[in-house]
């Protein structure tokens, strides 16, 4: 099979899958099943939507890189006739594409100070109990996520990397870790069963 036919088949399958997943999500909303069985219906709808988005990226990507979807490009690129540019065109460099200035010491020290300050706030909040336990957990996790974002963005330099790397690394981690939360309703069930006393 020559490459363009292969590409068309891939695009077609992914578009069909995306439409199917979107259709399933739309079905649950239309029939009201989205509200069934506690959060289960909502979870199903969200997973179908996520699948639809992820599958739709493939044909949309193909369109973008073959010159379509003009409105997504920068103004000059669009005027120049839709040549794919910007995000993903390779720039072969002598240092494997690493062509931006290093972080200044001042910026690094500022980020480090913020990290220490947030740590002390967290320790303080451990003693202040300004909210019920669930609220404390959310606040502490929120602060930790901010610290994680600072470390990943500045120390690990992710903020200054190519968008392709950011989009490969961050959404997958966030989604997979968030999906783990599906187990918490069961832990409440276990608590009510007095199974772990």
């Amino acid at each position, binding site marked *: 099979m020559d490459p363009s036919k292969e590409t068309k088949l891939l695009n077609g399958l992914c578009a069909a899958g995306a439409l199917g997943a979107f259709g399933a999500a739309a079905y649950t909303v239309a029939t009201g099943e989205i509200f069934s069985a506690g959060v289960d219906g909502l979870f199903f709808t969200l997973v179908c939507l996520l699948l639809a988005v992820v599958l739709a990226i493939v044909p949309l990507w193909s369109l973008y890189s073959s010159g379509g979807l003009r409105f997504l490009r920068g103004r000059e690129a669009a005027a120049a006739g839709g040549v794919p540019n910007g995000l993903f065109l390779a720039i072969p460099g002598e240092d494997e*594409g690493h062509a931006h200035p290093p972080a200044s010491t001042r910026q690094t020290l500022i980020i480090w100070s913020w990290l220490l300050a947030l740590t002390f706030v967290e320790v303080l909040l451990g003693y202040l109990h300004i909210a019920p336990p669930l609220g404390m957990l959310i606040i502490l996790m929120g602060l930790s996520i901010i610290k994680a974002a600072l470390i990943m963005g500045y120390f690990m330099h992710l903020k200054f990397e190519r968008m392709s790397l950011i989009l490969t690394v961050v959404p997958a981690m966030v989604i997979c870790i968030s999906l783990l939360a599906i187990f918490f309703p069961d832990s409440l069930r276990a608590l009510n069963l007095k199974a772990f006393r």
Partner: protein
Amino acid sequence: MEVAKLHEPAVSAWGGGAFPYGVGHKKLGMWLFIMSDSLTFAAMLVGYSYVRVATDRWPTPFPFSPSIIYATVMTACLLSSSLTMVMAVSAAQRRDRPRVVRWIFATVAGGVAFLVLHLIEWEHLIHDGLTPRAVPQEWVGEGGNVQSLFGATFFTITGLHMFHVFTGVIYLMVVALRRRSTREDVEISGLYWHFVDLVWMFVFPLIYLLSIKVN
């Protein structure tokens, strides 16, 4: 670099011979490893959270002195070692090899300080009677049941993290002392070290701050 094919309007970054992510394969490999390892820690922490939510009276035994003080100092050690690692990467970009080695040694010192303090913390708790299967009787009162998942979750999560710190220390020493280490090697080991710090940012509140002793 690939010559543009007839049916493609321009050179594709994904056709081979290019750098679609802007970083080399080694760095991409480290990022992929970091993604998978953070899922491992996330799974451990969610497992710990699950059993904690499902338990009626989870022990909250950490007194301010020494546990919370130690844990806070440990956090500061790791954060400072991340700082020195960023300095090492900057020095590497300036091709200043002696400074790189010195900054990496400072990072290793922070890591070793973390390990030593953490092991002392472990020793306190083990001395008090904490085991992977049971907690000390004082933590659950006179007639209380000492069987608890506290020990298992605590030692597994902090132990796995300590193992990562230990491995990171060795990795960094190898990078610092090897003559053929490149600037990229310094950056990649830096990524691993920041990841270890990042995991601690979540372990510290979940394991320590949510188990502060309330009198």
